[in-house]
């Protein structure tokens, strides 16, 4: 017996049902993001430092808002699975798991991203106008479609590289919301903390094992710093570095989504 995983008419039915039922939840999420930004940027406007609204700092505000709101909302994307009556309701709706999961991703990742960016742009626009008026500055409102032209306050490389961190972290929160029955959001935060500790520990171990030096050009070269200044470059295998870079930039998020989907598929009460 063959079964189609995605039937367009059924998928549309499910998307419409989801949008109708969750419209208030998403509206409140947008209002919460807006309220957070109004509060935060409002407080910043009360300081005397005119640089608090420079393009560089605006980009920081944007990414911090995106990380906070994106991770918190994703950690609750499949929270209905934590309540037995709601889980029964969700799991027994006659749509495929893939349709249900794609619907969650569409609204929780794609629509959320657009809405959050739009809200940020509007509030940032107003805040920057007020800041320019107050401080007599000429800061530009950052254009979210051309983020790469602004300086990166977080790390080396273009500002858009931060998305390579945002989407995998968001996907990890989605995985936690499917994986854990109760308190998925808090467990996700704890999990992220543990991952960070593991990452730092790995970094420290590597730092002790490797000769004193640093990675250059992401991880393509390792430069050993010699006391006499005669530094040496160790070129890592191109295949290894390319694989690591492609995996972390482009494959990690889809991989985490796939794991979340498979976990949802085998989800029991």
């Amino acid at each position: 017996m063959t079964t189609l995983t995605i039937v367009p008419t059924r998928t549309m039915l499910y998307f419409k049902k989801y949008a109708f039922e969750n419209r208030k939840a998403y509206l409140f999420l947008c209002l919460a993001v807006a309220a957070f930004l109004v509060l935060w940027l409002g407080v910043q406007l009360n300081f005397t430092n005119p640089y608090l609204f420079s393009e560089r700092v605006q980009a920081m505000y944007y990414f911090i808002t995106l990380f906070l709101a994106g991770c918190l909302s994703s950690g609750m994307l499949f929270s209905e699975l934590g309540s037995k009556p709601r889980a029964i309701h969700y799991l027994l709706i006659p749509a495929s798991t893939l349709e249900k999961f794609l619907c969650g991703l569409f609204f929780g990742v794609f629509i959320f991203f657009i809405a959050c960016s739009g809200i940020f742009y509007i509030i940032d626009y107003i805040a920057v106008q007020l800041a320019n008026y107050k401080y007599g500055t000429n800061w530009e409102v950052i254009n979210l479609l051309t983020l790469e032209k602004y300086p990166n306050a977080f790390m080396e490389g273009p500002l858009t590289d931060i998305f390579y961190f945002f989407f995998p972290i968001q996907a990890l929160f989605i995985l936690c919301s499917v994986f854990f029955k109760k308190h998925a959001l808090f467990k996700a935060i704890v999990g992220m903390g543990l991952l960070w500790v593991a990452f730092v520990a790995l970094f420290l171990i590597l730092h002790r094992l490797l000769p004193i030096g640093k990675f250059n050009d992401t991880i393509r070269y390792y430069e050993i710093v010699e006391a006499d200044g005669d530094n040496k470059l160790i070129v890592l295998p191109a295949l290894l570095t390319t694989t690591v870079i492609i995996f972390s930039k482009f494959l990690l998020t889809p991989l985490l989504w796939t794991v979340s989907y498979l976990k949802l598929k085998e989800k029991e009460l």
Partner: protein
Amino acid sequence: MISISNVHFSYGRKCVFSGITTTLSAGHIYGVLGKNGTGKSTLLYNLAGLLYPDQGDIIIGGYKPSERKPEFLQDIFMIPEEFYLPNISIKALIKYYSPFYPRFDHHAFEEYISSFDIPIGNLLPGMSYGQKKKVYISFGLATNTTVLLMDEPTNGLDIISKAQLRRVVAGAATPEKTILISSHQVKDLENLIDEVLILDDTNIILNESIDRISQKLTFKITFDEQDLDHALYTEPVLKGNTVVLKNTNQEESKVDLELLYKATMTDPAKMKQVLSLTF
């Protein structure tokens, strides 16, 4: 048809089913009886694909419930004991949910809902638990799925509503449908079910039709010492003793589900033996 074959299931170390095997046919209303914690709900969850057997197979209409294929889900409906309904109006519920069930009968839904005295224009958030349950039951019956699972459907319903429920469910039964109703309120299922399934200690200890039970057993109130001596089960009441006897004289008596249940729980092997005898 529902085929359950050598199903084992446990919650951690607690074994719930140890190799249950049975077949449930279409055109019947099964009453699933058992003490609290014997696995009535667990059986229904396994049938709906909400829990997976540790071992063994369940096949419903050619589908494995655990795969939760949309084609399977649109042909099974479960009314759980604790249910969730979104905070929308009844009309919106019908608009957004009924298209998922190809055989959904709008006219029947209106009939069921009016027989429960609920105005169709009502909003679900303002309703009581009992009213919401009636909406859920009406929706479930109107889906016309071939398998309908009802877990303690009478919980939260008043006496009048329980009678309404029995009437509505009996009216919705068709030769294509298999209806399973679990309950620990045995009396609630009287005059409704035509097959009895009793669970106890990780097994199905009885799976018989009401017809066969009434052919094989007699339920009556008696003072007769001889009846009391031959009784399979006896219980003192104000007017004498209620007894369960072998129906050797082809007497007609109404099956008392509560007595049958108690008699079976007291001595399942004897009850099975009596029901398999030819008088």
